[in-house]
């Protein structure tokens, strides 16, 4: 569904990504893990079109994404739940969700989507009239996820949903994500620093270090790999 080939990108002269290739099949849950500064967020920003790559190709289905203007990429079915949540603070929870549903599919499925989102993340239903800027960090993260789901995406991209959250809140959000995936069969691409949790729940994983894919494989291969065990799992 998403095929990234030889992608190099970065800010001005400093390349952050160096020939990265990543493949996400329909229905898969793929995790990209790696330390701070490995280029994970840069990768997502390039997929969403906020950054222009220096080289490489990004195919989404049959579409060459690099020829699609950034604002049109959401309409193709890519939902980006950005790093640091980035909800719209002066809009209410409900209005934030409506912004998620700006796409044609989001508008069409609005009724059933909102029901499912409130079902998965009941706190959003309770707070629907509240300004998003007044929510706690965990609630904002749930709103960001709900906002992504509201577009009826084909691919949900999650950039560090656990960032800056208390461990118990982060655990809760992971559980919700796994439930959502089980019930919806949605294709998900996750970037995480919490390597153990990410690899445990994903079908397939990539380890990104200093802008390169240093390791890839399915979840058992990765978790059995010595380097991963030593560097990330603390075993």
């Amino acid at each position, binding site marked *: 569904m998403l095929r990234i080939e030889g992608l190099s990108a970065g800010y001005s002269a400093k390349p952050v990504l160096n020939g990265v290739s990543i493949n996400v099949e329909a229905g898969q849950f793929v995790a990209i893990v790696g330390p701070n500064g490995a280029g994970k967020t840069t990768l997502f920003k390039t997929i969403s079109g906020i950054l222009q790559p220096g080289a490489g190709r990004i195919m989404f289905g049959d579409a060459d994404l690099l020829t699609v203007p950034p604002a049109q*990429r959401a309409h193709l079915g890519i939902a980006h739940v950005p790093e640091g949540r980035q909800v719209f603070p002066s809009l209410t929870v409900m209005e934030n969700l409506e912004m998620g549903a700006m796409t044609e599919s989001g508008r069409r499925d609005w009724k059933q989507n909102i029901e499912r989102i409130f079902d998965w993340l009941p706190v959003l239903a309770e707070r629907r009239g509240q300004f998003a800027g007044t929510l706690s960090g965990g609630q904002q993260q749930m709103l960001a996820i709900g906002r992504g789901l509201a577009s009826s995406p084909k691919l949900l991209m999650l950039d560090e949903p656990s960032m800056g959250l208390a461990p118990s809140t982060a655990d809760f959000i992971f559980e919700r994500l796994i439930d959502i995936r089980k019930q919806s069969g949605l294709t998900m691409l996750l970037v995480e620093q919490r390597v153990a949790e990410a690899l445990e729940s994903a079908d397939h994983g990539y380890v990104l270090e200093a802008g390169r894919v240093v390791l890839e494989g399915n979840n058992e291969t990765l978790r059995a790999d010595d380097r991963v065990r030593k560097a990330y799992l603390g075993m």
Partner: protein
Amino acid sequence: MEGFLQALAAGLLIGAVYGLMCVGLGLIFGVMRVINFAHGDFMMLGMYTAFYLFTAAGVQAVFGNAVGPFVAILLAGPVLAVFGYFVHRTLISHVSGTRTASLEGEGHYAQLILTLGIALILQNGGLIVFGSVLASIRTPLSSSAWELGLTSDISVFINKARGIDAIVSLVIMTLLSLLITRSRIGKSLRAAADNPTAATYMGIDVDRAHRVAFALGCGITAIAGGLLATNYPFHPFVGLEYVIVMYAGVVLGGMGSIIGAFWGGMTIGLVQQMSTLILPTQLQNAAIFVVFLLIIFFRPQGFFGRVVERT
């Protein structure tokens, strides 16, 4: 007592028009974060557009002297909105929006110089095209008044033209706030203002949102200018007199708060008129800025400003 009520009424009437004028600028600043120095001159163009629509384009002949000016003024709004759309597309969009989002200072230096340049071209171009003779949109309503008898011996006079100006301002303001708070396009404008990057992730074309905000802001201020022109004569450099008031109103209302700008403008109108009770008329504008500084001293974020800036 009568003098106080009279000044209060005058302040509320002019305040409503100032409020509308400020909202035009507040919309542009709130959504785009662009400081538009030319906004007073867009208003000047709105005044002349209404003037020529009324006198030369046949509005006077069709609607007469009482209704005609207001028809011309309302028509000037869409004309200036189209003009603003065009100016954004050809000039402003090159130094704002997603093109400059990743630059240091988000292109603010280029924006300042560009909008100052547009202001100079409009002012001096206006001088060439319209001449330096004072113009005004004359209606017999400007020189007649309604008498509001509050008690047997206290009554307040409401200038008919100013009364209608205020009503038109309030109606447009209501429609605009409905558009901003309820409609899809209004919500996406607010989302683009809150966080342009996240708005792009939602599939909102941020540059298009900016274009809509700029056009809308120009159209609204043009209407406010036309309304002012029913009572105040104008000339090609009139924008300079008002642009300061506009910025004061936007800052008072809270930078970035669109509806707040209306209350900022209203406050300025009230202070201006009430100050005549105790100060000579020449000090009206001094009074505005003394009060402005006092309010900003105690409430630096303005009436409706958020203390925390967008992330």
